[in-house]
């Protein structure tokens, strides 16, 4: 174990984590601002615009407010689980970012290649799927350990919702994986670059299923059953202050992660549209890397906007309706699409 090994195995990932965490937290914080602002626009108002220019300091004000609030643990709650539940929700939402490949590797002046990814594991998309399932446990635990009946019902709805969307979500992702031939996110993007068009076209049905399931996964309208912000009482009724903020950050981190993964799976990720990336990468590697991050961010923002859009438009489903959609509509569609995509791959993409 020499110093270089330590640097490569521990120092570099730590540095990457630092470099990644700052933008991710910023983006997650400003996702809240973005959503409130755009939602306001959809409702013919302006949204938060008092704190700082364009209301840009609103996330800071919100964070400060939540930090200074009293942290209440109800008398009936199970204290340890009650306190740990937001962390269970928060942690998987952030870990998912580790396997997302943000751009083609950065070529340093010395000629070393540093991947724009913390851990380019070969089961990246599976890791994201399993971690997002883990995040649900935070919600279920939070509602159950609150010692109150309404949060418990929120948890029940969350559990039933998980039964509804997990299978279609995985099936829709599997069809993309089938096309790309790899679970690794950078391989999926590379396959789209090699193919010449994005998986949005051959995977259009899978894309639709993924969007529906992803909205359900991130607990957002029209499938915000566990939370039920507008009418019914949700799982975080008993939470206050920073623990509540953890749930919120987890939700928005999930939104960002889902947007980014959708962009990687169906819109070519960091591929720059209308440009032959591989040819340009040979001559201007750093330019392609930088532009790739921008392109990725723009595609992710497109999905984020879409999520806000459907939140502003559609009313909420009941959880039995969601189960029916998940198992009687999305599951057969995703299954049939999987077969079609397999045939497509077999006959057309040899």
């Amino acid at each position: 174990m020499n110093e270089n090994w330590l640097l490569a195995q521990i120092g570099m990932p730590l540095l990457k984590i630092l470099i990644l965490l700052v933008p991710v937290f910023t983006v997650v914080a400003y996702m809240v601002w973005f959503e409130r602002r755009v939602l306001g626009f959809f409702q013919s108002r302006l949204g938060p615009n008092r704190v700082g220019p364009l209301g840009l300091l609103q996330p800071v004000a919100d964070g400060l407010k939540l930090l200074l609030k009293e942290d209440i643990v109800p008398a009936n709650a199970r204290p340890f689980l009650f306190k740990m539940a937001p962390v269970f929700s928060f942690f998987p939402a952030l870990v998912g970012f580790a396997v997302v490949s943000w751009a083609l590797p950065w070529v340093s002046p010395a000629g070393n290649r540093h991947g724009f990814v913390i851990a380019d594991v070969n089961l990246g998309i599976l890791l994201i799927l399993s971690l997002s399932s883990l995040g649900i446990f935070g919600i279920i635990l939070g509602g159950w350990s609150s010692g109150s009946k309404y949060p418990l019902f929120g948890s029940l709805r969350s559990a039933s919702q998980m039964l509804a969307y997990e299978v279609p979500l995985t099936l829709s992702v599997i069809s993309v994986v089938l096309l790309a031939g790899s679970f690794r996110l950078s391989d999926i993007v590379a396959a789209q670059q090699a193919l010449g068009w994005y998986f949005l076209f051959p995977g259009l049905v899978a894309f639709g299923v993924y969007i529906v399931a992803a909205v359900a996964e991130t607990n957002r309208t029209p499938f915000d059953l566990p939370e039920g912000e507008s009418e019914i009482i949700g799982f975080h009724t008993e939470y206050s202050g920073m623990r509540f903020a953890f749930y919120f950050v987890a939700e928005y981190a999930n939104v960002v992660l889902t947007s980014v993964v959708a962009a990687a799976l169906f819109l070519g990720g960091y591929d720059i549209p209308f440009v032959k990336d591989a040819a340009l990468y040979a001559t201007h590697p750093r330019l392609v890397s930088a532009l790739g991050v921008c392109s990725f961010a723009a595609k992710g923002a497109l999905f984020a906007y879409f999520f806000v859009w459907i939140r502003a438009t559609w009313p909420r489903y009941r959880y039995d309706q969601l189960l029916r959609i998940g198992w009687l509509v999305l599951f057969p569609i995703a299954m049939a699409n999987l077969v079609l995509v397999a045939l497509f791959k077999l006959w057309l993409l040899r």
Partner: protein
Amino acid sequence: MSAALQFLKMVTFWELLKGMRVTHKYMVKPKVTELYPDVRPVLPYRTKGRLHVEIETCISCRMCEKACPEGCIKVFPPPKEVFKTDKRPAEFYLNQEHCLHCGLCVDPCPTGSIHHSQEFELVVFDHRELLFDRERLPYDLDQTRYRWNWIENVPVKK
């Protein structure tokens, strides 16, 4: 044809997309929020704000005092000798605190000396700031911000 169209509408979630189109129309429309302290509102012509009294043209007839349902106007005419030449009131008390902004004092005034201005920001820290006398009545209103003028009781027919 119709069945095919219906099927197409079903698989493309046409009705949901229609809803999204409607909401997005509102997204790009101008917003209704008023940025009040930053942008002054454009008030209607007949806005009934704080009462404005032109002491110079007042003839101390006390019609406004009689008309006021709240009794918030008190007019003291000058002594008889002075009144022959100068009809301006010796003292004019206006209790804006009790004013209903009903406009009943404006109607009977023969000279049009009392009327509503467009000043609507009547919040004060001390309620005595809303008691006006002859010295304070011709208060310094910014004509560009709070215009005041004789407003006809009946809308002008065009």
